[in-house]
């Protein structure tokens, strides 16, 4: 038999990580962000436990500011796969009406996502959470462990991270501590797209180019997904755009593109030379900002 391809090896490794994490935790959960990495992660989880259904629910830490198409996709996917979906929206944010326009991206992200995630993990008592982060996304993630220990305050302490040898993961923790597990650690963006292609994994239509109403802010194209976004008269134009990453619509830059098929997207991605996280407003603050956010508990 021919040796395994890189996608087969990555798949097998991710499945091994899933099974190990589930066996060594009391109450696991998968953080589901509805993006393409989440879709791949969920696909791998379905494979890891087949013919059983994954023995954990999905958790969406919602900000109320995601694209409508994401909410539709999320609910349909959970129903189709027969897997429990939990949604948490930070009640403090609802009460204070936290939004990216009045409070800025930093406060918005911190309150809805970072605080919201902590609340959700505590509310349901999860001791292990799967996340879709990859080591190739950003320089500070190159050293992230597959099993990453978080303190009872959900902080990431570089000194308390454990060496990971062979396929042996140490998921033991003190009461109150939790573990984040990243099954896609060794995948690159290209691997993810190739795998979506090979496995015919369904992703949110926003990844494909289509005429969409956009405005230009600070050189970034923002899609006007609902009437909560303040716009000038005649500011909105229809352009053929798609998204490389998905998040809160006011914070997610679109790129102009005609690629409306999966192969078209991959082709365009390989021929252009902008790295993926550039579309996310959060990273631009300062060098090393992701590292700081991670220490504070951002996923």
């Amino acid at each position, binding site marked *: 038999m021919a040796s395994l391809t890189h996608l087969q090896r990555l798949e097998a490794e991710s499945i091994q990580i899933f099974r190990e994490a589930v066996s060594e935790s009391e109450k696991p959960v998968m953080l589901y962000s509805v993006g393409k990495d989440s879709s791949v992660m969920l696909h791998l989880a379905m494979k890891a436990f087949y013919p059983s259904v994954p023995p954990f629910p999905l958790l969406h830490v919602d900000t109320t500011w995601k694209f409508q198409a994401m909410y539709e996709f999320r609910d349909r996917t959970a129903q189709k796969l027969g897997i429990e979906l939990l949604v948490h929206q930070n009640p403090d944010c609802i009460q204070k009406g936290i939004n990216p326009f009045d409070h800025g991206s930093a406060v918005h992200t911190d309150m809805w996502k970072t605080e919201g995630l902590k609340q959700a993990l505590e509310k349901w008592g999860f001791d292990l959470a799967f996340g879709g982060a990859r080591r190739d996304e950003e320089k500070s993630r190159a050293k992230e462990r597959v099993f990453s220990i978080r303190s009872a305050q959900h902080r990431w302490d570089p000194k308390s991270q454990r060496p990971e040898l062979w396929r042996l993961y140490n998921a033991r923790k003190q009461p109150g501590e939790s573990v984040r597990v990243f099954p896609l650690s060794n995948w690159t963006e290209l691997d993810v797209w190739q795998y979506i292609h090979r496995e015919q994994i369904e992703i949110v239509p926003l990844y494909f180019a289509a005429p969409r109403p956009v405005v230009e802010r600070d050189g970034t194209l923002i899609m006007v997904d609902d009437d909560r976004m303040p716009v000038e008269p005649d500011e909105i134009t229809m352009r053929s755009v798609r998204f490389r990453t998905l998040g809160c619509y006011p914070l997610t830059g679109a790129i102009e593109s005609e690629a409306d098929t999966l192969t078209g997207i991959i082709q365009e991605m390989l*021929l252009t030379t902008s790295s993926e996280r550039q579309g996310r407003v959060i990273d631009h603050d300062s060098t090393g900002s992701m590292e700081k956010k991670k220490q504070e508990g951002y996923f």
Partner: protein
Amino acid sequence: MAHAQNDLLATDIEAYLEQHEHKSMLRFITCGSVDDGKSTLIGRLLYDSKLVFEDHLAALESDSKKVGTQGGELDFALLVDGLAAEREQGITIDVAYRFFSTERRKFIVADTPGHEQYTRNMVTGASTAEVAVILIDARKGVLTQTRRHSYLVSLLGIRHVLLAINKLDLVDYSEEVFHRIEAEYRAFAAEIGLEHIVCVPLSALKGDNVTELSPNTPWYDGPTLIGYLETVEVERDLDEKPFRMPVQWVNRPDLDFRGFSGEVVGGTVHPGDRVRILPSGRESDVTRIVTADGDLDEAVTGQSVTICLADEVDVSRGDVLAAAQSPAGVADQFEAHIVWMAEEEMLPGRPYLLKLGTRTVTATVAQPKYKVNVNTLEHTAARTLELNEIGVCNISLDRPVPFDAYVDNRDMGGFILIDRFTNATVAAGLLHFALRRADNVHWQALEVDKGARAALNGQRPALLWFTGLSGAGKSTIANIVEQKLHEQGRHTYLLDGDNVRHGLNKDLGFTDADRVENIRRVAEVAKLMVDAGLIVLASFISPFRSERRMARDLLDDGEFVEVFVDSGLDVAESRDRKGLYAKARRGELVNFTGIDSPYEEPEHPEIHLDASGSVSAEDAADQVIEHLRQAGFIAPLAGDI
């Protein structure tokens, strides 16, 4: 390399994807220091494989001008030096994983620092690598660190080494220099058993022989660095080994399906194959190899599958499915290499958790037979192992586990040790072989047993373990308890520091390691005495929870009674009958519990005595007697024994 590809990419994306979805993967480690140009090399690999994006490149250009070491030219090293802390220090302080790919392979690079104190990181990075790239500065030749890197590579079972003789541009691309270094290295590599070595003359900075053969080295006709990495064959040997699959998870969606999920870590398996379940030794036949993409006719090493068996045999997580004709061994005592990875030194005799495959058991490590100087490879005597030290030790487990020697199968012979209280991963280990005595030492089934002896004594044997600070009053109370028991006609024995330290343990001092060994011996002696039917009183400071737990674990359930003599530090110090606290405060006595060595209070002692002075020692002793009565140790209940 990439140009022809780009044409295909632009003209026929389907064909391009078809080709790229059939690439293989290679994991390798790079060893060398910043001085050897390691970061520059990795940066160049990323750059040349077009994985450096425009925005990264912009950052690189501005960083190169700001902090670069190449006089404003692109400093590739800046692409890979990650965490803010290390950027400031200018060194790499952890294992970083990088990714790049060519048209033939995807690569995962474990980027590890070369400094001596970071053996831990290199061992971690090497544990998953199939190939090692060892860098040498052509101006300096084979250095101590080269030997160290090569030894660790060999220890961790990497069989393929590329020696990159770098910075050749700085020695005028001298063939003579290259061959001299190559000859010296090959001689050394043969000594440590490294077989497959390829040497490449390189300038990572200028790009010579990285992806294309360089006109500067016309005398060299071997592969380029990338050429080697793209073609080196590493996987086949694992498929030829006997089948092994540690069971991770029992897959039981309903009453009709029962499968065992795991990753194949050795050999291949087919429906119809006979497998042995270890450690139980039962056998069965494979009926199905289940995956979400349909049943397989064959599963090979590296695949994650779910296996169904013909018989209703008992299989759970931690078991290993193995080829019935050549099963793995099963044992509970081993010799192993241990690489210590924690700041806190190894404590021989202390129980740690050991994770091997999918099984976690309790293990104690004996005092090292020797430790290995990673620079000279000399063996020296050692009582313990400290951070980044490597030694050979015997290790004993609380129950038997399936295993293969590490040299035969990394996943069946590589283990980690976990601290039972902090849960930190404190060591990595590589099994050599099982010790014979695991088979040879059998407890004789004695006809006169513990129950019989206890019945004769009219008591249930117990170990009363008095713990507390020096001066808390442990021995005072224990003495009174023993007198009272004696008056009632009970058979007792009191073990304390005075009668043990002067004889059995007179070779031990007061370091943490010696304290652990002290308690281990006391606990073993106490166990024999309990077996003899006695009520044993042990009075020791015993500051560490783990040693008290060890003593508890040695005895049968209910026999261990922990008595916490709780005075508080202030009261104990104010008593200071032997003047020890005063000495410790003056710094004349080191490792003194409560002063410069910690006392870990019992969390759930059976008896908690107030020894602050408000209760007399006499009354405290009565509390202990009362507990023994209530717990049935000394009440002559019929049928109790």
